[in-house]
């Protein structure tokens, strides 16, 4: 064989040829383009179509953007400038320059206080850090706990002593709790329990009695005319009778329960510290902070809540409502998992009700109804009412996310906690929640982003947030009437920057969680 081979082949290469570069069509940019853009007829058509769209869009938008006028005092002036320059289309970005403060901070926030807002949001990032990035030291959580008081002071101004006194009273309340639950001997606690039991029992009985009278009053006001009224009348009477019958037994029982807890000190310390906290806030708060403030005044210019506006208002509503709704959401989620039918029922009804109606109707409630449900003397301004309703709204969604987290925990965790002899509170606090919350963080972040976007709806109930500012004062003003794209585009951009970065974080977190589980 080899002979014939030798005869037929004139040349046999004995050394390997050097590697030649791949064909031009199979390498570098060309290959990439072939594979990614023109790999088949369908793909080619798609690519050409997409290219056409992109180019058309660019031709349309680019000159408008590039010709933009940044300095003018009104839209007419903008148009004049464009006309003089002989440019067909052009944006009037001057509106952003002229109304920058309004768009970002609202038009009533004191101008020399803008640094306060910026500082508050910078610190927010620091404060949120330890909750969001598990690699950061746990000790930073201390700052997170302190942050709300600082932020309150920075944003709303007034005396620094007010938030500090509140913080002090909260710490004092916690100290009272510790004192009674673990520091004092049992025999003294027994006396304390007795006293507090009597006070609370009597107080509760009295309050229930008043409540019962209130229910009778309601029933009588409702009357028995019409179709629905008799039913409501009956229901209120039943509740009133219930309250009448149980006011004394309830008082005795609660009083006894408080007294009875003197051995382990659980209930009595909770009730005592709450009582202490309530009294301290009612009677001590204002004298203390005012006294402190008169000695060493540390004050920032106070700003009323209704003076908040612009994008800042969106940010404020977003952060406040999300942070308030997380604890509420946890309670609702736990309640929904509870084996007790009444508690579970209340939570399910609340969650499903909130999730079934649009946020705008809840804002209408805040706007036109809530005032009727609150005591006549209470002075809740619109922003506070809106915060209440948005918090309720987002707590229902967060509850569903956390419920998902709770359900995702392996059953063994619950059983292990039980087998260690932990009671419900301990098991939930030490075993269940830390794990469930960790899995829920991406979901919570998504809810937070959605909620943040939904804060623009407050513009519909006449609050001057970013969108309200655009639709109200700016577009109605003599100078900037008929300005749309620039301001809406700017609004969209602000939201995009914030929401996109948060959602990127959420995706990063999901990847982190994924790897840690597999």
């Amino acid at each position, binding site marked *: 064989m080899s002979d014939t081979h030798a005869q037929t082949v004139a040349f046999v290469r004995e050394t390997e040829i050097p590697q030649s570069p791949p064909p031009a069509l199979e390498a570098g940019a060309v290959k990439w383009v072939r594979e990614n853009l023109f790999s088949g007829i369908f793909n080619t058509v798609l690519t050409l179509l997409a290219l056409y769209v992109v180019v058309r869009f660019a031709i349309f938008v680019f000159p408008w953007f590039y010709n933009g006028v940044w300095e003018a005092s009104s839209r*007419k002036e903008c*148009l004049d400038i464009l006309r003089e320059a002989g440019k067909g289309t052009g944006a009037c970005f001057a509106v952003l320059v*002229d*109304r920058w*403060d*309004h768009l970002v901070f609202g*038009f*009533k926030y004191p101008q020399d206080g803008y640094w306060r807002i910026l500082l508050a949001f910078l610190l927010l990032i620091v404060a949120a850090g330890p909750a969001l990035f598990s690699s950061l030291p746990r000790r930073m959580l201390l700052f997170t706990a302190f942050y709300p008081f600082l932020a309150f002071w920075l944003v709303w101004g007034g005396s620094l002593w007010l938030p500090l006194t509140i913080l002090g009273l909260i710490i004092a309340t916690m100290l009272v709790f510790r004192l009674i639950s673990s520091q004092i001997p049992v025999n003294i606690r027994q006396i304390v329990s007795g006293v507090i039991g009597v006070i*609370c029992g009597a*107080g*509760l009985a*009295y*309050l*229930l009695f*008043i*409540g019962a009278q*209130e229910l009778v009053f309601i029933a009588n006001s409702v009357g028995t005319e019409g179709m629905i009224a008799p039913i409501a009348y009956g229901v209120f009477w039943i509740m009133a009778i219930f309250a009448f019958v149980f006011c004394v037994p309830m008082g005795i029982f*609660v009083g006894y329960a408080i007294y009875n807890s003197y051995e382990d000190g659980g*209930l009595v310390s*909770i*009730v005592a510290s*709450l009582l202490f906290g*309530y009294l301290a806030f009612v009677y001590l708060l204002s004298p203390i902070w005012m006294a402190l403030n008169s000695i060493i005044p540390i004050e920032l210019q106070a700003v*009323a809540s*209704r003076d908040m506006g612009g994008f800042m208002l969106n940010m404020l509503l977003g952060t406040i409502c999300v942070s308030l709704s997380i604890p509420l959401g946890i309670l609702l989620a736990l309640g929904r998992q509870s084996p007790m039918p009444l508690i579970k029922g209340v939570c399910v009804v609340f969650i499903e009700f909130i999730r079934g109606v649009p946020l705008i109707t809840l804002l*209408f409630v805040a*706007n*036109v109804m809530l*005032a*009727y449900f609150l*005591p*006549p*003397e209470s002075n809740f*301004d*619109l922003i506070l009412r809106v915060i209440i309703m948005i918090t309720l709204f987002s707590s229902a969604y967060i509850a569903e996310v956390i419920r998902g987290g709770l359900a995702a925990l392996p059953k063994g965790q619950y059983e292990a906690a039980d087998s260690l002899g932990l009671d419900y509170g301990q098991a939930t606090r030490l075993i269940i929640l830390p794990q469930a919350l960790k899995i829920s963080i991406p979901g919570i972040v998504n809810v937070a982003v959605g909620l943040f976007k939904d804060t623009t709806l407050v513009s*519909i*109930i*006449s*609050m*001057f947030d970013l969108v*309200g500012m655009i*639709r*109200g*004062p700016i*577009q*109605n*003003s*003599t*100078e900037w*009437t*008929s300005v*749309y794209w620039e301001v809406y585009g700017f609004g969209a951009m602000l939201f995009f920057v914030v929401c996109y970065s948060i959602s990127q974080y959420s995706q990063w977190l999901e990847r982190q969680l994924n790897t840690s589980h597999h």
Partner: protein
Amino acid sequence: MKKSVFLGALTVAGIIAGGASAATLDEVKARGKLNCGVTTGVPGFAEPDASGVWQGFDVAVCRAVAAAVLGDGNAVEFVPTTGKTRFTALASGEIDLLARNTTWTFSRDVDLKFEFIGVNYYDGQGFMVPKELGVASAKDLDGATVCIQTGTTTELNLADFFRANSISYEPVPIETGAEAVQQYIAGACDVYTTDASALAAQRANFEDPSAHVLLPEIISKEPLGPLVRHGDNEWADISRWTLNALIAAEELGVTSVNLEELSAGTENPEINRLLGTEGELGSMLGLDAGWAKAALGVAGNYGEIFEQNIGAATPIGLARGLNAQWTDGGLIYSPPFR
């Protein structure tokens, strides 16, 4: 659980201990600020300027009342309201006075339990069309698309007018004036209807105001006035007579220029009573003797306020018309100060 029962119950107790509501005047004095409801922005009537200070014809009423009560025309917290929120804001006590070009109607006065304290602008619903349509009368508008701002009496007037003339139309309800203008300019509606004053105000902002005409028909009576809650007559009196003081001052020739001079005392007893140098009018209202002087000191009398905000010299360019003093053939008329 116990916690919530307890706190809830405590709050119940707190409420019941609360007691009857204080008079609005005392509340305002205690607060040191007047809460005044205005629009979210109508040029000339109420809009924040570039530095965020509210300006306008309605705003001036708020400032005058604040000056009369608190002595400072800047002691006003302006609360922007929409058509939907204005009445609840007033009813719930969030604002003390609503000065938001609100039409005085029977049902608002009687059924909704408000107290209109007078009329500061006599208006009527008008129509604006582009000149090129060649429409001369609102009765030629058969089949037209009409932009209306919702939340006012406008929708009802419009429906009534077209029904009475048995012609058809397509309503396009819009929330804010700016958006109505946007649609109208783009030709998404043929006609824009709202109060004639607002039409004039908004036309002034157009690129080419002369290309649009107001039709001669005024299809409704729109007496616009400030209002307060039913039931607090003292507060209503203060607001009513502050407005009347502005009007009477114009009639009597008291202006921001000669205010100081006249308040030293004049030959005219009515001016003296108005400005507090004679009689006890201020103390009857529970205010200082110089209440009306303070109110006039903010921006002058009714006529001056009109000219500064919406008069012929402003971009809005409204003529006095019905809103001239009764002595000049208008409807603006103040009861005597005695």
